[in-house]
């Protein structure tokens, strides 16, 4: 199947695979360097406490662990977004879907008599996930079946979604008792590791395995690279696209659950506001091209860590709130430039001896292949 689908790529030698792996690492290197630089800045300002975890109430804490915990919803959404972008799509509705998932679960739990019932919480979570997956699938159908441009198709729910969330909550902010098991999703810990981190890492591993250990990843990339050629090669492009949007919606819903569980309330207006933009940013920082056809889940993860750390850095360095957006823009600018092989060649050109120092971007790209 995979060899048919991608013109014999599965016949690649082990040597070639190694080259690609190193290229993959190279692509990860720049975002990792930026992340490291941010961490160094924070340590310089606030001391090693920044990076060292501490245990508080049976839960890992400390500045950096907090950043990772708070970044979990963004990571989930960015992972879903990565898959969608791999199909040459984009999903602008994730922030609104986040709000819908949060509103559904919180409203249902609040309206019931016994908030500490585990069965109720599980039902609410299942309902929220089912609805958000359905919304994701709907986006996918609009794109794949009806050929509506992704940015337009998902814009509909981006605009309408918060209205729907408001209808669910009746314009109020539903709150859940702090004692309800629901809040464990956002505040709890498993073996001292905060639950949001556990969930986000589990989803990351699951998606990585699904896309890199099965043919799914290659199919995604092939659909994103050239849907028509993929279809002619026997790949069910439309099904793959719908699946990507469905997973993205599901991830957004899960993120909404974690976010609202953390606050024990769901704000239909502000929950997950503009998170779609941060998610797209994280995907791009991580080296996934918006042109589709290739994607890097690990890169996205590093991108999310950069964005999360950046917010803290601005506070730690003592910049005022007005600087927040400017600082973010500067870092993204730096990462984007560093990732550009042409920019690096232009800057480093005078200092390198051979022309082989930087391969042209075309051959630099680690077109990954799913192992059979």
């Amino acid at each position, binding site marked *: 199947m995979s060899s048919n689908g991608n013109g014999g790529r599965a016949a690649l030698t082990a040597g070639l695979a190694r080259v690609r792996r190193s290229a993959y690492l190279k692509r990860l290197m720049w975002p990792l360097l930026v992340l490291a630089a941010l961490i160094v800045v924070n340590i310089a300002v*606030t001391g090693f*406490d*920044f990076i060292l975890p501490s245990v*508080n*109430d049976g*839960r890992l*804490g*400390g*500045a950096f662990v*907090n950043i990772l915990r*708070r970044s979990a919803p963004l990571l989930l959404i960015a992972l879903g977004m990565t898959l969608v972008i791999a199909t040459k799509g984009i999903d602008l509705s994730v922030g609104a879907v986040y709000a819908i998932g949060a509103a559904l679960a919180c409203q249902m739990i609040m309206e019931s008599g016994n908030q500490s019932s585990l069965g109720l919480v599980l039902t609410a979570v299942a309902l929220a996930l089912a609805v958000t997956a359905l919304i994701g699938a709907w986006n996918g159908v609009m794109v794949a079946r009806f050929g509506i441009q992704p940015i337009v198709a998902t814009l509909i729910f981006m605009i309408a979604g918060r209205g729907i969330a*408001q209808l669910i909550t009746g*314009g*109020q*902010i539903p*709150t859940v008792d702090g004692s309800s098991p629901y809040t464990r999703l956002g*505040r709890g810990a498993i073996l001292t590791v905060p639950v949001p981190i556990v969930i986000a890492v589990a989803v990351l591993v699951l998606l990585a395995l699904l896309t890199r250990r099965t043919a799914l990843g290659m199919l995604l990339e092939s659909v994103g690279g050239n849907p028509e050629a993929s279809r002619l090669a026997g790949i069910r492009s439309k099904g793959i696209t719908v699946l990507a949007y469905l997973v993205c919606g599901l991830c957004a819903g899960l993120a909404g659950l974690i*976010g609202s569980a*953390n*606050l*024990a*309330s769901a*704000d239909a*207006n*502000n*929950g997950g*506001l503009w998170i779609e933009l941060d998610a797209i940013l994280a995907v791009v920082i991580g080296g996934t091209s918006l042109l589709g056809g290739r994607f890097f889940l690990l890169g996205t993860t590093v991108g999310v860590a950069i964005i999360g750390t950046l*917010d*803290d850095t601005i*506070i*730690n360095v*003592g910049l*005022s*709130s*007005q600087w*927040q957006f400017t600082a973010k823009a500067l870092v993204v600018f730096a990462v984007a430039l560093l990732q550009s092989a042409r920019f690096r060649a232009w800057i480093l050109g005078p200092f390198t001896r051979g022309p082989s120092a930087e391969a042209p971007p075309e051959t630099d790209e680690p077109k990954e292949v799913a192992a059979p």
Partner: protein
Amino acid sequence: MLKKTLAGIGAGALLFGLSACGGGDDGDGGDGLIVGFAQVGAESAWRTANTDSVKAAAEADDRIAELKFVDGQQEQDRQIEAVRNFITQQVDVIVLAPVVETGWTDVLQEAEDAGIPVVLADRGVEAADEDLYVTRLGSDFTEEGRKAGQWTVETFADDADGTRILELQGTTGSAPANDRKTGFFEVLDAEGLDYELVDSQSGDFTAENGKSVMETFVTTHGLDGIDLLYAHNDEMGLGAIQAIEEAGFEPGVDIQIIIVDGSAAGFQAGVDGKLNYIVECNPAFGAQLMDVVVQVEAGESVEKFTPVEEGVFTADQFEAELPNRQF
């Protein structure tokens, strides 16, 4: 004896007031005023409470015959259309809560040409259109900040080693955030309080950001030696309270907390002893609005800006006030 005299004077004044109003109404043909109200939308609990208050006040007020209510759904087009309809229907007074500040010149001019006075509620319009409305009834955000500052000065006057303050600002650049900050520090500086602003960041008026910024404050500065948290609204304050609790501290005790707004959730936190002072940002100005509407229609001169009556609440008042909260 004195009490009785005062009561008599009060009753007399009340009667006089009532008859004065009645006389005004008669002049308009009897059955009270018809008021058109173009509301922003239903974008927040505060706004919903505001709408309910205005509707209830109009219902209860004998001087008002009818309130024509239009929900603008946060779109200026709908509001402009609503105002035009009010003009066609020849209502007595138009109340407008403009969703944005600009773009009102034409329709306000039309209202003026039709001889219908316009009262702005809550939000304002750009200064160029100042002549096209009679008055604005709304919150004085600077005054809210001053009230928070006043309590701070009184509470920490004896703090020998200086008062160390954290601040959670509202959305960067928004009027409530700017003014609540300005008013607060204006009083602190004027009263000569020995304070240090340890950190001040935007929490964007949301619980989510309030909590995450507070978490960072805790890891960066610690909470030992921090005396006060000043949160520009209660959503951020409530988020920060969670962060403080999760860090193993006791909000309201280890660190004193002021919030502005005063929703039911905020008061509940106060009753639970998790915060110390609430400055009200009052959406329930329906009754006051009706007074202004009647004054304006009668042609009485009113100030260009009428501040909404807003209270402050200390820890011993939270429990009694909680049942009165409407949002």
